[in-house]
């Protein structure tokens, strides 16, 4: 159940809104409604909730048709499988987003902390989430960058948050790093 969350869907939403097809493999709990609120076009989305043991072939097939494939590997990907999928990526025009660990990814995104607003002690409702997202990777992305993001914001979209104007005290935020990898 780990490693997948709204950030993956938000990354898929922008290309989908621009007309790209998006495949989601191995993530039966993907909240399509939340993704649609961020811009994902559900009509151009393919779900393969259970890709099974032959998931590398499934992902390779999806990459033939979809510009973007969001994957949580059902099993740990061996170096050989990773190399073959990366070769598929180089041949085609697709992007593979992996929820989980993927050594050698072009770009990795981490969430250092996240905090929901809008909920009190017995009242209110979840309104927006403020998160500190860190990106690093290889090549051009080698410099580590950190941004505070509203994801989703009050209006349902994604926005950059001003760290001086956060709705909570920075020092109290729990810092539990998580890894996720983006290969493209």
């Amino acid at each position, binding site marked *: 159940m*780990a*490693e*997948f*969350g*709204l*950030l*993956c*869907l*938000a990354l898929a939403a922008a290309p989908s809104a621009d007309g790209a097809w998006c*495949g989601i493999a191995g993530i*039966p*709990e*993907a*909240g*399509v*409604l*939340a*993704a*649609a*609120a961020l811009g994902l*076009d*559900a*009509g151009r*989305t*393919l*779900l*393969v*909730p*259970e*890709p099974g043991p*032959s998931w590398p*072939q*499934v992902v390779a*097939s999806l*990459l*033939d*048709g*979809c510009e973007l494939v969001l994957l949580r590997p059902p099993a740990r990907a061996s170096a*050989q*499988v990773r190399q073959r999928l990366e070769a598929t990526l180089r041949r085609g025009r697709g992007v593979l987003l992996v929820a989980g660990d993927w050594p050698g990814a072009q770009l990795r995104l981490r*969430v250092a902390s*996240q*905090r*929901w607003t*809008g*909920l*009190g*002690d*017995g*009242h*209110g*409702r*979840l309104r927006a*989430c403020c998160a500190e*997202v860190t990106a690093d990777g290889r090549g051009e992305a080698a410099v580590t960058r950190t941004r505070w993001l509203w*994801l*989703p914001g009050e209006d349902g979209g994604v926005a950059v948050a001003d760290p001086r104007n956060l709705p909570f005290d920075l020092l109290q*935020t729990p810092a*539990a790093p*998580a890894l996720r990898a983006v290969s493209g």
Partner: protein
Amino acid sequence: MVVTCPDLHSANLSADPDIQTARRHEQMIAAVTGFCPDVEVVEPGVCAFGARGPARYFGGETALAARIIAALADLGLAGRVGVADGLFAALLAARDGTIVSPGGTAKFLGAQPVSVLADHGLAAQDLAAQDLAAQDLAALLVRLGLHTLADFAALPVRDVASRFGDAGEGAHQLARGLDSRPLATRPPPAELSVAHRFDPPEPRAEPVVFAAKALAGRLHDALAARGLTCVRVQVKATWADGQESSRRWRHDGLLSAAAVADRVRWQLDGWQPAPPDDGKPPGDNKTADDENIPGGIVALRLVPDLLVRATGQQLALWGETLVSDQVARAAMRVQAMLGHEAVLRPVLGGGRNAGDQVTPIPFGEKTEPRLPAGRPWPGRVRGAAPGLVFPAAREAEVTDDAGRAVTVSGRCAVSAAPARLAVRGDPPRRITGWAGPWPLSERWWDPSAARRRARFQLVTEDGRAWLAVVEDGRWLVEAGYWLIGLG
């Protein structure tokens, strides 16, 4: 001329779906069709056709009847043949295998007892399912002293119509031999499936796919010649060891021969998951192909499924996302590997619960949400939608500061502020914020589908938020709000 098979006739096919009987019925019709192509199937085990032409060809009605009985005997069926002018008289003649000579029908009919009006299936059919009325009529005629059809037919039409109504008038027409409606013959069922046999068995996929392209071309030509198209096409491949792979592919008249061949290729590829090291192109690696196709393929068959009239295809002008060939190809290849239900397209709809608002529909089927959008759906959770909707709700325990389970009363009063959330399989988390309960009572009018539940939103110390539900005193976690799994 009427041919009956009493064995099949007594079995009521519509009430008793016995495949064996239905198959024997089809065999019988096929055998009769061999003598005359235009055959009307009157009832299970009973068929009729115009005898004049075939009788002349086969050398007389008696000779034709003998040939048909012999052909049915070859199938193990005891058949009877009756010949007379008109369907009703011929059906009566077939009961004892009489061949009424031309012009003798009036005499033959006149000698029959009036009870034939009641117990003959044709009477019910022609009198528009007034079987009971026909029985009553026959009994009444006997009580009136009219014992044969000749007696009945001798009555004036006007008197019969005024005394017995429509049913009586219809029966009177039958008795006078005036049932001469033309036979509703069916054209012989065309065998539209195409097959190719491989001798010796073909161990490689490429030649099979190549043959499939030619087969699909033949199939399309045959369908086009009849102005038909098929909704689906079934691809059956038989291996030398007797295994068979059968799969239906959506066709809708849109697939070219090459596209059908592609589907055959995917089906063969997906039949056994390819070994993980087959990154090489096919052809130069014969052993991998041999593993794909155990023992080789002996036969490939394409069967059109659900024939419909070809009316052409018109795409919607607006509001329909076009699925490009490339995407359809990718989706169908995955379907070939994992099955039709494995590739889904989400359709947004309405609903009150987190899981209701998205309907997953197998790729290639009509996309329509289960619950319509655009209705108010009072009671749904407002605000940001959860990024994770668990396919099966996860069991959880929610306790207060003192460690007691938090309960919700029938009037939606919470026993204490929730303080700890323990989702099954995860360590307990401290709750830093909560809201609820939001009650939801669905379908109270239907005891089997009624649900009463109270929803909460919870935020825990690790920055995650949860959508929790209390139902029948149990806590369930339906959805989660977080950007990434923090551990």
